[in-house]
């Protein structure tokens, strides 16, 4: 291991003293310094922070990916070109140790730059979070605290089962004699055989039935059922000061810091000195609570006076994220809708009265955790109060609840990036082991492009093979492309998925399983495979011969 570490240290020093790394570091610093001031997002503070996190991490990732790839190709291929290997390999250093040392050194540098950039982004995001002037409304503050600076688990409802509906429709078409003409029509239109035509018709019917099952007509309601919801977030506690008491109405107004206001849910439960109440309104530095009249006259609340300090406790909440799409886009008025959440075990009901539903945009509801039953089940019902049908697809509705802090989630996101960079370093070192610098760069750029467009390329070739090209040289080309893609899929990770910023931007916790899977597939399997290939090639290579 001594040789590997020596080469790694040497590589780290070499990269630090290379102008390329310095140039990229300056570019990165400039970009991160500018982003907070030019990125405004949707105008809200949460949107601004999300946009900053998204762009900041994307810019960081792209720049560091370039740096790591360029350096990792260069440290090996330049050593051969400049004949440094003549001296290095006259020493007792095994070639595989050299290759691993080079990879480790570049990865260390990538890790250092990543830590610096991620640290900068984190601090700037915290700075934006502290800007009280950018979040005047309580809901803005709440969105920042509960949707961005958090780590939530995300659950989707059970997919809609449309098999029975499809079977019914097919039987109906067969009964009325329209099935066979439809199959022939598909076969001619897409130039496919009848078997393939049936597959495509069923696929189209499935999409149609799923859309119908997830649409709600005017005046009707739609229900989603979730399982495995176990909100375990900590109770938020704070102090507030009594401002005004309307004892006959059971209302008390409190003053508190904005951070606490941001956690409150309109119509949601809150505990004041351990007495339960319901939040009736919030503003930037205060809130109003409705208490049961019996509680109001009981000993604890009966003695409350203005300016008296009280303890406030807010139990964990569950968030519902959804996107509603109207059937008609020319509505004169905004979409209207209402929600109802019921807990059959406890009889707890949480209503969200009618409000303007954002049209085709992601929105969030906050629901008290009391709405979840003992078995982790949650039942949501949406009432469509608009004059048109509204579709909310099952993949567009999800339940989220806090399972951790933003900091830990941020570190996990950074680790995912580090794994991506480590893989890219392995790819670059592998290229440098047998190619010159320019050719290695070309190869890596092509592979990276393929990696980021892997899904699209796979689907295109699949479509081509199934429906478009049936015979001749064209089909052979598609088949070769298909085989090459299979190899690429084994060798290269889906970097677009690994390096996506959605987790952090959406405040969704990176699952440990996902992190472990990325580690296993990206590093243990693919990077190791590339490094092993590189070691084998380098071991068999005549280093004193100049190769291109």
């Amino acid at each position, binding site marked *: 291991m001594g*040789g590997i570490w020596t080469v790694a240290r040497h590589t780290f020093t070499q990269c630090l003293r290379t102008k390329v790394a310095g140039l990229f570091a300056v570019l990165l610093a400039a970009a991160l310094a500018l982003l907070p001031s030019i990125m405004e997002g949707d105008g809200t503070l949460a949107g601004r922070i999300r946009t900053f996190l998204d762009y900041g991490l994307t810019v960081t990732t792209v720049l560091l990916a370039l740096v790591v790839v360029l350096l990792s190709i260069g440290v090996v291929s330049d050593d051969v070109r400049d004949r*440094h290997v*003549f*001296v290095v390999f*006259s*020493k007792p250093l095994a070639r595989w140790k050299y290759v691993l040392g080079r990879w480790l050194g570049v990865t260390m540098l990538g890790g250092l730059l990543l830590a610096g950039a991620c640290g900068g982004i984190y601090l700037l995001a915290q700075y934006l979070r502290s800007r009280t002037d950018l979040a005047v409304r309580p809901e803005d503050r709440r969105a920042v605290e509960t949707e961005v600076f958090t780590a939530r688990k995300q659950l989707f409802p059970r997919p809609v089962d449309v098999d029975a509906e499809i079977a019914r429709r097919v039987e109906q078409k067969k009964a009325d004699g329209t099935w066979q003409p439809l199959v022939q029509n598909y076969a001619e239109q897409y130039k496919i055989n009848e078997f393939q035509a049936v597959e495509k018709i069923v696929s189209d019917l499935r999409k149609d039935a799923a859309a119908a099952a997830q649409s709600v007509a005017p005046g009707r309601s739609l229900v989603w059922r979730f399982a495995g919801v176990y909100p375990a977030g900590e109770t938020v506690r704070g102090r507030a000061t009594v401002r005004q008491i309307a004892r006959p109405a059971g209302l008390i107004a409190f003053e508190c810091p904005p951070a606490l206001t941001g956690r409150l849910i309109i119509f949601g439960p809150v505990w004041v000195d351990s007495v339960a109440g319901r939040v009736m309104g919030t503003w930037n530095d205060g809130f109003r609570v409705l208490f049961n009249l019996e509680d109001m006259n009981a000993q604890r609340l009966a003695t409350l006076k203005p300016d008296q300090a009280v303890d406030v406790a807010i139990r964990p909440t569950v968030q519902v994220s959804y996107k509603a799409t109207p059937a008609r886009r020319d509505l004169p008025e905004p979409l209207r809708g209402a929600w109802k959440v019921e807990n059959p075990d406890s009889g707890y009901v949480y209503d969200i009265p009618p409000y303007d539903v954002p049209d085709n945009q992601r929105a969030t509801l906050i629901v008290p955790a009391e709405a979840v039953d003992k078995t982790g089940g949650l039942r949501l019902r949406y009432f469509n109060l608009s004059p048109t049908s509204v579709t909310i697809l099952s993949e567009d509705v999800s339940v989220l609840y806090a399972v951790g802090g933003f900091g830990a989630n941020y570190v996990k996101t950074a680790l995912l990036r580090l794994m991506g960079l480590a893989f890219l370093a392995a790819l670059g070192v592998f290229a440098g082991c047998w190619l010159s610098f320019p050719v290695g760069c070309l190869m890596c750029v092509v592979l990276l492009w393929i990696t980021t467009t892997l899904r699209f390329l796979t689907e295109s070739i699949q479509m081509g093979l199934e429906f478009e090209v049936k015979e001749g040289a064209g089909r052979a080309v598609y088949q070769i492309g298909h085989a090459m893609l299979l190899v690429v899929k084994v060798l290269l990770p889906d970097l677009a998925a690994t390096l996506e910023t959605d987790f952090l931007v959406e405040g969704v916790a990176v699952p440990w399983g996902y992190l472990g899977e990325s580690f296993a597939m990206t590093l243990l399997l693919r990077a190791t495979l590339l490094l092993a290939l590189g070691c084998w090639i380098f071991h068999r290579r005549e280093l004193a*011969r100049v190769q291109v």
Partner: protein
Amino acid sequence: MVEVSANESVVVTRGLTKVFKDFWLRPKVTAVRELDLQVFPREVFGLLGPNGSGKSTTLKMVLGLLFPTKGAIAVFGRRPTDVRTKARIGFLPEESNLYPFLDARETLDFYGRLYSQPRHERLRRVDMLLEMVGLASVAHRRIGEYSKGMQRRIGLAQALINDPDLLIVDEPTSGMDPIGTRQFKDLIRTLAARGKTVILSSHLLGDVEDVCDRVCILYGGRQQALGGIDDLLSRESFTQITTDRLDDAMLAKVGHVLQSGGHEVLEVSTPRAKLEDLFLRIVHEAQQRRVTTGGAVAGGEVAEFLRGPEEAAGREVIEGLVAAAGQDQAGEAAPAEPAPEPTVEPQPAAEVVGDLVRAARDADSGGEGPPAPAADTPPEAPANARDADRSVIDDLVRRASAGGEDQ
């Protein structure tokens, strides 16, 4: 691959052939053909030949940087790519091929780490090597800023960091100034005296002639001649007599005598001093005047770890005697003039020390000094007594060094 029996040889090649091919794997050029070599321990072996004769290709195959197309190589009885073999080798390539972004100290430290040397020992060797190659004062400068000659010096230092059993040097004095060249040759002699093996490839025939025991002359990738320097260079059909200057009358007499014996006088000439000696003397004087320079200074003595424990111990005795011999030299650094080959016969250490003490006393008392070799004596003697004493002490140090090597 053909099996090669190493026996006592350090390097053995059997039918070594290297054919370079083009992109389409068509044979392009045969760089080395059927080369059979055997390099023995403790010898300085020279590879000679014009450009493209296969010298460097051969060395690269010995180092495992190129693979033979045919034939076999064994280095210390193992394959050239064996890491255990590399631990005993030091290599100075034709171009120094060092990392330009490291400074001299970092360079030596990096290569020292590759031998897994303990930190203390590594740092000690780095310091000694920097001193030896005369780069201690510019050790903080990056290699990229060095002149070619300075790079050769640090390249030589990295080749010696492991005190190698086999030193392979390719055009070692290329770009080096005469001081460095002389020092290099002294170093090769020192290493050979310690039982090290040296393989030297060079265009500079004078260098090869000065230090090599045996040479192999290559042309077209084939071995053209192989043998000891004396065997190859001696001209048995001629006799050369060197005497003090003869006037024309005496020359005529000598010619007459030779003709009467049936011999012919082929050439009569007056020998000239070597330009190398003149150059070294001028630089030495400039250094004594402390003329400033941003480049390399004259190298120091051979690093202690390269001299071996016996000589290092004897050295301490000598230095003690030298210090006692001239108190007026106290505090003055010994000049770093490269030591010419002494002409004294090898003697046991005790006798050498005795001679040195006597010589030192003679020098102190103004008596005759020890017989100095002609090439070692500058044409102009030092102007003052201090310089004269200094030169005596220099001779003592050099002779002690030579005596230690002979043990």
